[in-house]
């Protein structure tokens, strides 16, 4: 029983983490919140549901989702954030992204309706037993894909030139420029990566639930925001750790207390973190200074 709960916690936590990484990437380079992010995440689930209902071959569906995510990230940057880039106005882009979020919500309602869309069976249901653990093929796919994505993002940030540019930009915009970082291109990349992660996280959530949920953005997306703050603003590894932690707390409160408490578990964790370590779990004082 507890093993099954741990497995659930892990999958939920991965989902939070993936959405939170997207918030974090954008917040890192711009110091601004992208409120359209949870809706891109929700849209990802519906796009995947449609791809599955159309019985598209999986590689084709995946490629389509990645492109859609990149395009959504790109549009968010071009329409909401870039126009205000030179005006020192931190509110306008945030409000524009709220507007973009509403457009996406309406788009989902228009195309798919306001009810959840059931996924057809996409994978042969096989159960693997591993000591006390029982893992279904879908669960295995979700876990492998989630951790794979996190490792890939971490590798990108720590080992590639683009990752160096993102980190330098997150820390000191002017210095990054002086070192040759093209700020506009790097910011655009952060949005596109964030969009791809959101769409793929939406797909993984739909896989786990067996349906695409129009409220996914609100319930998961908002909690992912808490995850970002718990992990440490702008800290990608922090977002990963905090995502898993919030997933664990969520599932455990549901399992051992009651459903009434599980909704607030993440927020209690957020308040406790802010009380005792305001810079977040992996945030350092150093980081607070630079942000």
């Amino acid at each position: 029983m507890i093993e099954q709960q741990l497995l659930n916690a892990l999958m939920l936590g991965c989902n939070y983490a993936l959405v939170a990484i997207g918030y974090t990437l954008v917040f890192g380079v711009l110091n601004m919140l992208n409120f359209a992010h949870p809706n891109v995440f929700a849209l990802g689930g519906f796009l995947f549901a449609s791809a599955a209902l159309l019985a598209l071959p999986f590689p084709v569906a995946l490629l389509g989702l990645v492109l859609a995510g990149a395009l959504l990230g790109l549009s968010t940057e071009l329409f909401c954030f870039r126009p205000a880039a030179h005006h020192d106005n931190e509110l306008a882009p945030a409000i524009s992204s709220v507007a973009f979020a509403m457009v996406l919500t309406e788009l989902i309602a228009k195309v798919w309706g306001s009810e959840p869309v059931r996924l057809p069976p996409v994978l042969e249901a096989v159960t693997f037993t591993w000591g006390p653990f029982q893992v279904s093929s879908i669960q295995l796919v979700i876990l492998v894909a989630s951790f794979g994505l996190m490792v890939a993002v971490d590798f990108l940030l720590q080992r590639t030139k683009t990752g160096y540019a993102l980190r330098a930009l997150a820390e000191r915009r002017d210095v990054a420029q002086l070192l040759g970082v093209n700020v506009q291109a790097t910011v655009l990349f952060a949005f596109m990566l964030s969009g791809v992660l959101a769409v793929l996280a939406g797909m993984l959530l739909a896989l786990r639930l067996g349906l695409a949920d129009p409220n996914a953005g609100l319930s998961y997306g908002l909690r992912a925001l808490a995850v970002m703050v718990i992990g440490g603003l702008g800290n990608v590894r922090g977002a990963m750790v905090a995502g898993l932690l919030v997933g664990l707390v969520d599932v455990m409160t549901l399992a051992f207390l009651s459903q009434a408490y599980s909704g607030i578990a993440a927020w209690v964790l957020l308040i406790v973190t802010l009380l005792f370590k305001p810079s977040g779990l992996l945030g350092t004082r150093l980081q607070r200074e630079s942000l």
Partner: protein
Amino acid sequence: MPTKPLLRIQNLSVSYGPIAAIRDVSLEVNPGEIVAVLGANGAGKTTLLRTISGLLRPRAGIIEFDGVDLTRLPSHAIAARGVAHVPEGRGILGRMTVLENLRMGAFTRRDGEVERDLEALYARFPILAERRHQLAALLSGGQQQLLAIARAWMARPKLMLLDEPSLGLAPLMVAEVFRMIAAVRERCAVLLVEQNTRAALRVADRGYVMELGRVILQGTARELLADERLVRAYLGRRSRAAPGGAA
């Protein structure tokens, strides 16, 4: 001088809103030269460097570098053309390691000799090798300044802009920083902004003295060291300097 200047600034004016920070400044740096820009706080020295590297846009004037007009290029393109700017306060990326900072310095490079340059740097400044895997924020102020210059050197620039590299450093570190500046000249020209007039003129070939946004005096380092007005200004600055200051 028969050589074509590497950097030629003509009648440059820069303002912050209605306030003029630099007025009608002309200045040249030849290949291989170290040129010092001296003057008190608020003379416009930092503004000058920030305009060259594209962080600020001039109101009027020409900045020609290696035959190209820089005034229309974005900062990252100016960096890619061979201008490495070490900003005031060092501009260290504290959340990255020393090695990552140095690699970041080589960001615009496409050649395969970055590793070789790192080795050369480590051989000359062993402290960077010892600390390479530490977060740059954990270095002392002087070590951070060395790292900042070393990072700029990793770009293989044609011109390095140094903004107050000795500011706030202990005398021993000041000497080390100037040793590095002398090493830098083997590779590129340097435009050095300093309040530490004497030390600056000891490494420099020529110098310009700025006051309230204008160049009021220029000459070879030897001429400037002998100039009565500058000596007076320098001594004046020294008497006002805080105890333990860089002078």
